[in-house]
């Protein structure tokens, strides 16, 4: 956590953001653009055309050595041993109690020399914690090494229906044949980089990792070529409304060390059978506990926005407290107030009427299916 005297880290694109009207804020110790013009404009551009996000603040770790797959397999809820080359998987890293330490993407790749390695993208806010966790569990066998590539590289997300077209035109990099959640090491702007068909917006698109030295050039090329297609730069504000509509959890909100993956609705990212990993036994037990609060989606009748920590109440005369909002926004796509919340399982069924207490005023809500938004395919 950062105090008032902490010097904020800057990504290689910091000067670009500052020069192009980016409103810079402290995010997890990084000075990042929250918006350039308007959150709604940047959100809509992502849904309808394309946007560029600087996500260089996210932690990027490379794992090498014959023991790398087995080591990550021990740390992650998802099976890593046997993960094919070019595959990317969403997974959780949990403590022994099954609480979530971070949500990550794990990649299995071959580098420019044909050497296999694993790549882990972690949340900026958790990078130091995850490195400490990795250090603590590194095997004595010394058959795994890891390196933190976060500051030596930049990471750029190009998101939206026109993202791949723009990426091809700007960088000569055709990712149309790359399936969703796959990646490759490739040449980008004359340097070795990494491209994946991933993102955090609910749209098609890709994420590029390039050496810090060429970050501005790559970004500028994408920007120049993309502008006639309707591309805009977008900040963390739009990133948040986009991921919320797509019901993607955000660490520190939907995910904490006191939440296990099953109650978070992330069972798809947990392989319990026939293997073990840190937190496995606790998650197995938790998966059978029918009393734990569940992550749900809420839609409100009011245009007032339910914010984090707003209490969720029963809609009957008891008005009993049944949970709490973890993220909320006014959905730019649906023009409605939406939220994600954890509620008692007996209130979690789709259609259940509930009430959100927004600063003392009771606003009617109902449980709706997640995600709020799914892109047309």
């Amino acid at each position: 956590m950062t105090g008032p005297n902490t010097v904020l880290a800057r990504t290689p694109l910091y000067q670009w953001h500052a020069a192009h009207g980016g409103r810079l804020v402290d995010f997890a110790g990084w000075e990042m653009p929250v918006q350039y013009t308007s959150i709604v404009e940047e959100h809509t551009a992502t849904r309808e055309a394309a946007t560029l996000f600087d996500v260089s603040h996210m932690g990027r770790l490379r794992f090498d050595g014959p023991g790398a797959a087995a080591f990550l397999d021990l740390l992650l809820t998802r099976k890593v041993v046997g993960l094919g080359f070019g595959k990317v998987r969403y997974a959780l890293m949990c403590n022994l109690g099954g609480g979530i330490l971070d949500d990550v993407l794990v990649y299995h790749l071959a580098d420019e020399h044909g050497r296999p390695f694993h790549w882990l993208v972690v949340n900026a806010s958790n990078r130091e914690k995850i490195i400490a966790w990795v250090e603590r569990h590194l095997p004595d066998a010394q058959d795994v090494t890891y390196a933190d590539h976060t500051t030596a590289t930049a990471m750029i997300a190009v998101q939206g229906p026109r993202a791949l077209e723009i990426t091809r035109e700007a960088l000569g990099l055709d990712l149309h044949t790359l399936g969703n959640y796959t990646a490759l090491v490739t040449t980008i702007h004359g340097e070795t980089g990494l491209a994946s068909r991933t993102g955090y917006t609910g749209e098609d698109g890709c994420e590029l990792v390039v050496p810090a030295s060429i970050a501005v050039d790559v970004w500028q090329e994408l920007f120049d070529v993309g502008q006639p297609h309707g591309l805009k730069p977008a900040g963390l504000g739009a990133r948040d409304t986009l991921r919320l509509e797509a019901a993607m959890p955000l660490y520190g909100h939907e995910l904490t060390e006191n939440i296990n993956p099953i109650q978070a609705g992330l069972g798809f990212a947990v392989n319990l059978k026939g293997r073990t990993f840190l937190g496995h036994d606790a998650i197995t037990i938790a998966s059978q506990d029918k009393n734990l609060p569940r992550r749900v989606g809420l839609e409100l009748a009011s245009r007032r926005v339910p914010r984090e920590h707003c209490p969720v109440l029963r809609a009957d005369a008891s008005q009993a407290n049944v949970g709490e909002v973890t993220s909320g926004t006014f959905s730019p796509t649906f023009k409605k107030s939406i939220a994600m919340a954890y509620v008692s399982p007996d209130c979690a069924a789709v259609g259940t009427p509930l009430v959100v207490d927004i600063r003392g005023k009771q606003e009617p809500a109902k449980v709706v299916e997640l995600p709020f938004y799914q892109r047309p395919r």
Partner: protein
Amino acid sequence: MKPEELLYAPTHEWVAVAKENGVQVATIGITDFAVKQLTDLVYMELPEVGRKLAAGQEFGEVESVKAVSPLYSPVAGEVIAVNSELPNRLETLNDDPFGQGWVMKVKLSDETALSKLLDYAAYQKQCSEQG
């Protein structure tokens, strides 16, 4: 209304005082700077007509995608009119914050609060310091 002729609260409300039917009435709105800072407005709550406000008292709220901001009355008095169409047409706050975007009219009960408000130059200075 000309921004140069208005008074301002440090909390970004503007005030225009004029005599209407023999009484001192303050028309109150939100500054263009505040609207620009908020961006993406989605909701606004107005006070009830007839409500008595103290200077500095919260009288409503304006909400953007990102955050909610309370509105504070720069003056003391009774609410005699509100711009009831405004919450349905929040874009008016972007288009004409010092005119069609007015929020409420208050019949002044006490004019001492007026002397604590900023003039245009002082308010501009505050805004430039806030970036």
